[in-house]
């Protein structure tokens, strides 16, 4: 049932031009960033060689690319998230799901997987561009992998937050605005931290992602994102249950 709901969402999305348009823009932006970074690296290569140890191409090209992809995904998530539950309520299709023998948990998980899957091509693009470095040199596979895992975790958190925010309102644009607000808030919260090790940093998605970005795979960071997913999906389930008591 979870898979059925996720696949239905994906199917509806991919027959509309929205997903394809967004993917086109994302590949254009990421390719542009990748090529400019690579160009700069090649121009500076002789100077870099004199540093010890010299920074590698993966560090100078792929890591910034992944960081940019994360920001790009942050902006994309609201676009797709507003369709998840908000649109179903606006178009009055939610009763079909609610009157069917599926639990609220299954509906929310289906929506979450559908949304996560829509965002995954961003990770794939970064992975392919990073791997293409192997044509000319030996990339740092470990760093590339850490970045990809980091992006996967981050996008799962984005999707969970998106599904929750989407359940808050029957107005898709409002749902999109709330999604963007929550994502930016959790992304930037470490700016308010008084010290680099302040407690607020522990809540920040960017602080946890930056470790992946530098190639550090820490189980605490993975746990942070898993916790974020669980909390927001739990809230989404509660919200859906409460909504039913809230009337038409």
């Amino acid at each position: 049932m979870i898979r059925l709901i996720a696949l239905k969402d994906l199917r509806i999305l991919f027959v509309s031009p929205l997903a394809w348009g967004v993917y086109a823009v994302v590949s254009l932006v990421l390719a542009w960033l990748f090529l400019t970074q690579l160009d700069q690296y090649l121009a500076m290569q002789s100077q870099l060689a004199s540093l010890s140890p010299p920074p590698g191409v993966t560090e100078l090209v792929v890591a910034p690319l992944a960081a940019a992809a994360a920001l790009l995904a942050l902006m994309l998530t609201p676009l797709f998230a507003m369709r998840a539950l908000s649109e179903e309520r606006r178009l009055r299709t939610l009763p079909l799901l609610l009157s069917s023998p599926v639990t609220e948990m299954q509906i929310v998980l289906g929506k979450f997987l559908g949304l996560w899957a829509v965002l995954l091509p961003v990770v794939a693009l970064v992975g392919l561009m990073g791997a293409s470095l192997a044509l000319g040199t030996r990339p740092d596979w470990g760093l590339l992998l850490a970045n990809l895992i980091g992006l996967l975790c981050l996008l799962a958190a984005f999707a969970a937050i998106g599904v929750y925010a989407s359940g808050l309102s029957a107005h898709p644009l409002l749902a999109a605005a709330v999604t963007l607000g929550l994502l930016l808030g959790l992304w930037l919260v470490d700016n308010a931290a008084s010290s680099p090790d302040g407690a607020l940093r522990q809540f920040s998605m960017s602080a946890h992602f930056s470790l992946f970005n530098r190639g550090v795979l820490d189980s605490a960071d993975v746990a942070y994102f898993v916790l974020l997913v669980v909390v927001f999906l739990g809230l989404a389930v509660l919200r859906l249950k409460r909504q039913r008591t809230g009337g038409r």
Partner: protein
Amino acid sequence: MSDTPFELTLRAVSLGYAYAGKPAVSGLSFSLRRGEVLGLLGLNGAGKSTTLQMLTGILPLQQGAVEVCGHDLARDVLAAKKNIGYLPDTPPLYAELRVDDYLAFAARLRGVSGAAVAAAIQQAKERCGLADAGRKLVGQLSKGYQQRVGIAQAIVHEPPVVILDEPTNALDPLQIREVRTLVRSLARQHSVLFSSHSLAEVEAVCDRVLIIHQGRLAADEPLTTLQNNGGLETLFIQVTGDGKANS
């Protein structure tokens, strides 16, 4: 699923529902028998849709109990819901999907196994006059055809109980007649409960009528006895015409 041995397919006992403390439905009890078409009649705002939404598990049961083919809706939600097919007042259609894909989704969602889906869709389409529309996009169909797709999704899993919320709303006279014929034909295999605010419709289609007024059950009569006592209209005016209707 249509061979379940329960004579009563649906039983509602003292249903009650309040929106923010304001009662919309209270003390509503009735039952639905196999093969019966039951009309739910009432003025706009009388509580028809609220009642139907409670029966289908969309609104929680604040008060009372519902039993569908022997399954309690509160304790055994999924089993009870499997036995219901529901068409809300706005058909829950995904405009971007083809009719076949949409009906397949609805069938799978209601628990039809993968191997049986194709046959279920085929049958639902034939019964609703959609045999040639399978490849069309739901969003490009006319209003009347969309309503047929809405009914098709409610019967695609062969539920013992079919609940239709104002199925003839906003249709032209010809389409209304088609939907009525369809509802009558459904009664051979399903129990049908449908709401309406048209007296003529209830008279044309139903075996029995429930009249709801201000959230309470005002009448529960077989149509055959009504025909001897001045007809449905007399009864309806009698129970609703006390001037307090919120028209």
